[in-house]
């Protein structure tokens, strides 16, 4: 019943859940006289992408990492889908600022603008894929290492609320392709997602 709408849906717990949910993936890259702008330009050229992923989560309470895998779809500038196949099918779709998460029979839909921290988190990935430096710098301090061939972009959250959850996001790539996303949470747990490009649909 609608009466209960506020009960759980907007709780901090669910917000965090969504946060994690967004360990999404990307794709893209570039070369030559090397700086963030050039990286961004190269990434921005990629209009759509399709990749497979394998994600490992290192959680302190578990003796070994948990692994999930599935596929990623991206269409510039703001459509992103993470479709997990194993261990349980579920999907997460970001489309024009609306986030839809489906797991089993549960389906959640929300507007990112209502969840600033979640929006910032998702924008770290979307912004990188879209080569949107402005969007990234709104929430993160950016550092670029390596070469056009093998680069690593590190994002450190500026905002305190974000810092309480996420310590660091490290995105590594080859030329215009994102190859891995490593997220370190403030409590020390971390996740690494490895991305393998598939034929663009």
């Amino acid at each position, binding site marked *: 019943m*609608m009466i209960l709408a506020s009960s759980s849906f907007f709780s901090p717990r669910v917000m965090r859940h969504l946060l994690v*949910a967004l360990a999404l993936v990307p794709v893209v890259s570039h070369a030559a006289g090397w700086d963030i702008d050039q990286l961004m330009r190269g990434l921005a050229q990629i209009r759509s992408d399709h990749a497979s992923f394998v994600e490992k989560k290192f959680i302190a309470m578990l003796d070994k990492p948990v692994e999930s895998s599935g596929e990623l779809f991206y269409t510039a500038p703001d459509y992103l889908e993470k479709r997990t196949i194993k261990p349980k099918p579920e999907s997460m779709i970001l489309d024009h600022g609306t986030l839809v998460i489906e797991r089993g029979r*549960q389906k959640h839909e929300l507007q990112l603008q209502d969840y600033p921290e979640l929006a910032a988190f998702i924008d770290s990935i979307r912004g990188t894929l879209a080569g949107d430096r402005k969007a990234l710098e709104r929430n993160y301090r950016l550092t670029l290492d390596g070469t056009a061939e093998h680069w690593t972009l590190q994002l450190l959250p500026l905002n305190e609320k974000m810092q309480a959850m996420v310590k660091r996001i490290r995105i590594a790539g080859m030329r215009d392709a994102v190859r891995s996303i490593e997220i370190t949470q403030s409590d020390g747990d971390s996740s690494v997602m490895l991305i393998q490009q598939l034929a663009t649909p």
Partner: protein
Amino acid sequence: MQAPARRGRAAIARTSIVLWLAFILACGIIISRSRVTTDLSAFLPRSPTPAQQLLLEQIRDGLASRLILVGIEGADASTRASLSKQIASRLRADPAFVSVNNGEPVNAERDRAFLFDHRYLLSPAVTPARFSVSGLHAALSDSIDLLASPAGLLVKSLLPSDPTGEMVQLLEQLNSGARPKMVDGAWASRDGARALMLMQTRASGSDIDAQQRAMAAIREAFDTAPAATPAARLVMTGPGVFSVTSRDTIKSQVGRLAVISVAIIATLLLLVYRSFTALVLGFLPVISGALAGIAAVSLGFGVVHGITLGFGTALIGEAVDYSIYLFVQSEQGGSDQQTWIKRFWPTVRLGVLTSICGFASLLLSDFPGLAQLGLYSIAGLIAAATVTRFVLPHLLPTNFRIHDVSAIGLVLLHLVQRAAALRWAAAILVLAACAVLVLHRGSLWNDKISSLSPVSQADIALDESLRADMGAPDARYLVVVSGASRESVLRSSEQVSTILQTQVDQGELAGFETPSRYLPSIATQRARQASLPPPGVLETRLAQAVRGLPVRAQLFAPFLADVAAARRQPLLQAADLAHTSMAMAVDALLVRQGNHWSALLPLTAPKGAGINANRIRAALSTARATGLPDVLFVDMKAESDRLYSGYLHEAILLSLGGLLAIIVLLLSVLRSPMRVVRIIAPLAAAVITVTAGLAVFGQQLIILHLVGLLLVVAVGSNYALFFDRADHPPTKHLPPREGTMAKPQPIDHSISPRTLASMLFASLTTVAGFGLLSFSSVSILQAMGVTVAPGVILALIYSAIFARQANA
């Protein structure tokens, strides 16, 4: 000899006037103590079945009746959202509101704590099997899978204390169902153009004063909010809001109608009488009738409905007829009123009796509103006629005279004598009307209860659009479970829930609500508690269960502690829900009436599809067979329409009964079937023609059209009787025997010009009174207006056309 006679008459006059004044005074006292209501449930059934009774009470007082949906339109999205938050924060402090929802997570922490602390009592997954070694193993591996998913973070912190995932279970259960989207931190419509709020008042929806205050508080919070801007607009809807606007509409219209109709009738009479004295005196029976009507209704029903008052103003036009007959039909000159009493009173009296027979049938209606109209009319007409007969003649000044209307009468007489030429045309018209009725017989009546609502189409459209935005269940389908105690209805609800859940799994339903979800029965809570193994046992099982999983049993120490505590935990009571969002749901869904408890389980249809009522009913009937006797599947809309159409049929039967009573009355007084036919025929023709006219103009008949038709018969019978009287002067001739009718004797007193004029004026005042009602936006009043005004004119014309032509 003359002197004592005059003295005697003077004594009678004094007595009559004193009695009359005393009567008026008594009526005044009763009226000053009576209460006026505009609650439209007076136009709802009075003695339905217990289940229907429950539904009606839900409509009047249930949670749904206490909801106010608010929309904020105009300005920009962020202004709308700020307004919503500012209004909400102000009204949350207002005790008149039980809750103010706009999507802000005000109860979130409390709700979460409640669910977490009671998870082993609330979760339907808690069974003995779940806490066996294999059950624990399965639950743990599910939870670890969940860690790998995007939802992982949610369960991560919960894992040590809730490895079986009961909290996730509960959250998923509560999250089912649609809800508005959020824009800038507050609910908004799907297209984002309107901010939405949902408020629940403490007062019930039928407490219209309280609803009006609540609306005023919302409006004030909107007007005085820091973000207030002229660009933003506030809209409100909901059952309470409808009641308030209906009352305002009825009140203002009844007041205005009364003033205008008195003004028109007074002007008309002044033009005819050219005498203020006559005008004032002519209104005395009317006022007496109105007072008597209100007093009678107040005594008979305890309350007087606003609609009855509105109807009463229209009846002015009819009650004034009696004094018109007296003034106009009397020969000029002082003592001629006595002559009138001798010559015309029997006819008028018969007319009054005819009207009473018609209205008496309404008294039997189960519709309190109709019964009120019936009582009002009977009391009003008797009082008006009695005052005209016994009081008014004594009040007339000795040289009382009104403007001579014989000239008009002569013109009318001329017309009437030629009216017979129209017989064929009239007959064809009536036949055509009959044909229309036969053609429209399927769609003649509107048996939707909404047809009685005074709420405008625009307001209904706004209500529908706000409801759709809110994703509110339309509450059309309900399962109602009844029992003698809270515990028994909760237990039955749990059984019904199992059946409904099967329907959800099969896709027949999108979901359903049940109070047992938030407040399980004591039996179920005990069973869940008993499913939890003792600490030692659980520890051993857990140690075995983690084998093969990437976790150590030691991690789950908080789980062992929580389960041990849950085994001794006091069972959940209704009071434990206080201040959570769940309390509102339980309040709404669990209803107590004395020793009778009911649980309401609203069903939500699958998206883009309806609910297959038969299928749900069948599923529930299998349950009934297995010992759930008091389970009722209710289609609210169909149910209320069925109630109303039952009423409508009752009213039609009663009206036919009234017609029969009129015929019997006329037969017993006139003792001539032919005369009765002659009197009834023009009335029937008028009724048929008006009904056909309404059908042609696409107006479906509601119950109040029927009342209008009764009025046409009541008023029209006077005309028909006057025309009839012309042939059969009651004082001079014995009623002719049957069989001699074919050859009437020529008579000197064919209908007199004066009588004709009086009938014309009488019908004009009636048309003025009721004609005004046709402009009312209250459908109930409008229905009577559009029926009576043309009906009365037609009755007069048909009476003239079909009258026996004395010297023709």
